[in-house]
């Protein structure tokens, strides 16, 4: 396979750049997109990026983007052309939301169509999308979908669709054993552990986990689709809650 040089005609419409999971091409045809600041890598055509505070479409921003905490991190991309987006070399996928609701870590949301409503989730650091439309999400590694009930490392959680009340779970047993480990550090028993490291973010252990609670009531119909085989499987079961997990979220710093 030779080197392929892209042109506006060969670039895909709303799909990954061919052979590259880390770049995504969006076609702008008059309808604007909300994109996170700094996500633009390149574009063809006539595209403007307007800060949400002074856009030419204040009505759309007021109606769709209700997250004052994050409004400085977003711009409205509008015009005509092909726009290539990337995010820290992370895998990027697009998802279609069909009259659904989905909550995603703010740093993993890359772009969304203004047919979707953006709300600030009650869970800090997360945003909720409501309605029908497309959005792009980035993840460090492929996204995995899992069915609750399950427990997730909060740093690995990307988001959830339609999932009721995630909650923190603290492992009491771990803490007891941790005291044992501290005793080991002081030489009182042979088992070792370094208490100091627990306070370092990278080494945050697993006693804190996010728990996807069991579903209590029938969920409204929704659909999360993407072009990956895993997600196509899940399309067949639209009533189920799903949680998306990736190897590590952008919130966690990369390896030193």
């Amino acid at each position: 396979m030779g080197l392929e040089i892209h042109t506006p005609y060969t670039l895909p419409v709303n799909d990954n750049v061919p052979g590259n999971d880390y770049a995504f091409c969006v076609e702008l045809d008059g309808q604007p997109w909300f994109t996170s600041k700094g996500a633009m890598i390149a574009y063809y055509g006539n595209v403007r990026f307007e800060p949400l505070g002074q856009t030419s479409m204040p009505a759309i921003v007021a109606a769709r983007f209700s997250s004052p905490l994050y409004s400085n991190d977003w711009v409205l991309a509008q015009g005509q052309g092909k726009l290539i987006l990337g995010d820290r070399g992370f895998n990027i996928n697009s998802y279609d939301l069909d009259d659904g609701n989905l909550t995603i870590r703010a740093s993993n949301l890359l772009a969304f169509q203004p047919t979707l409503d953006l709300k600030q989730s009650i869970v800090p650091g997360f945003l909720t999308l409501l309605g029908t439309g497309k959005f792009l999400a980035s993840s460090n590694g492929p996204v995995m979908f899992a069915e609750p009930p399950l427990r997730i490392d909060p740093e690995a959680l990307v988001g959830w669709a339609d999932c009721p009340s995630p909650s923190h779970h603290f492992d009491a047993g771990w803490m007891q054993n941790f005291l044992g480990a501290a005793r080991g550090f002081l030489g009182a028993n042979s088992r070792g552990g370094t208490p100091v490291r627990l306070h370092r973010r990278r080494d945050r252990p697993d006693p804190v986990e996010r728990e996807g609670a069991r579903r209590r009531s029938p969920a409204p119909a929704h659909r999360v689709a993407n072009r990956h085989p895993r997600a196509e499987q899940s399309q067949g079961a639209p009533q189920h809650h799903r949680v998306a997990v990736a190897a590590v979220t952008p919130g966690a710093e990369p390896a030193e």
Partner: protein
Amino acid sequence: MPLELVNSKVVKSTLAPGQNVLARKGAMLYYTGDVHFIPHSMGGAASGMPSMGGVAGMAGRMMSGEHVAMMAAEGQGEVFYGHAGLYVEVIHLDGSSMLTVEADRLLVHDGYLQSSIVALTSQGGVRGAVRGAMTGQGLFTTQLTGQGSVAVLSHGGAIPLQVGPQHPQVVVDPQAYVCHIGNISVDISANVGWRDAVGRGSGEAIQLKMTGTGTVWVQASEQKF
């Protein structure tokens, strides 16, 4: 139950009652079922270094940078592991040979594998210690024996290279070295001149010579973690 790769960065272990799986602390991504995690220290004192048990052994490992806290998973269910978006490689041990890996590259291994932390001085005498100090590998590595599977971390994927019998020697960049299995002796080859001292060297002054029969895994990156 062997470890299974879910994708290039995530490995799944299926736990049955009575089994346990040891993993780097904090590397659990998510799990289903009834699983608990217990802090666990590497059995450095148990074998290989009888004189370095308890506090002294741990202090030595911490100083050498070889101490990565581990945890044991017990119970019944499926546990998914990954770390910092690094690539994961699963290596199956058939019981006939020993896997040598640095502790910070070790993600998960079956609990019934024997693990020991070995001082490089016991392998190569003073040269081993010099190698550890000069390559930044530390003075200790982890050795795993028995039948089971191990998941190791690499930046961008690990490439297996065969050593022997036709190719008796492979030379490896110490920063790209991930792990090795089999009957391989590791020797440092340093060719440090004044150019390296003033930063005008080739950048490849220190190399690892692997001789014997077995497999060496390298990553196409010089990133340490």
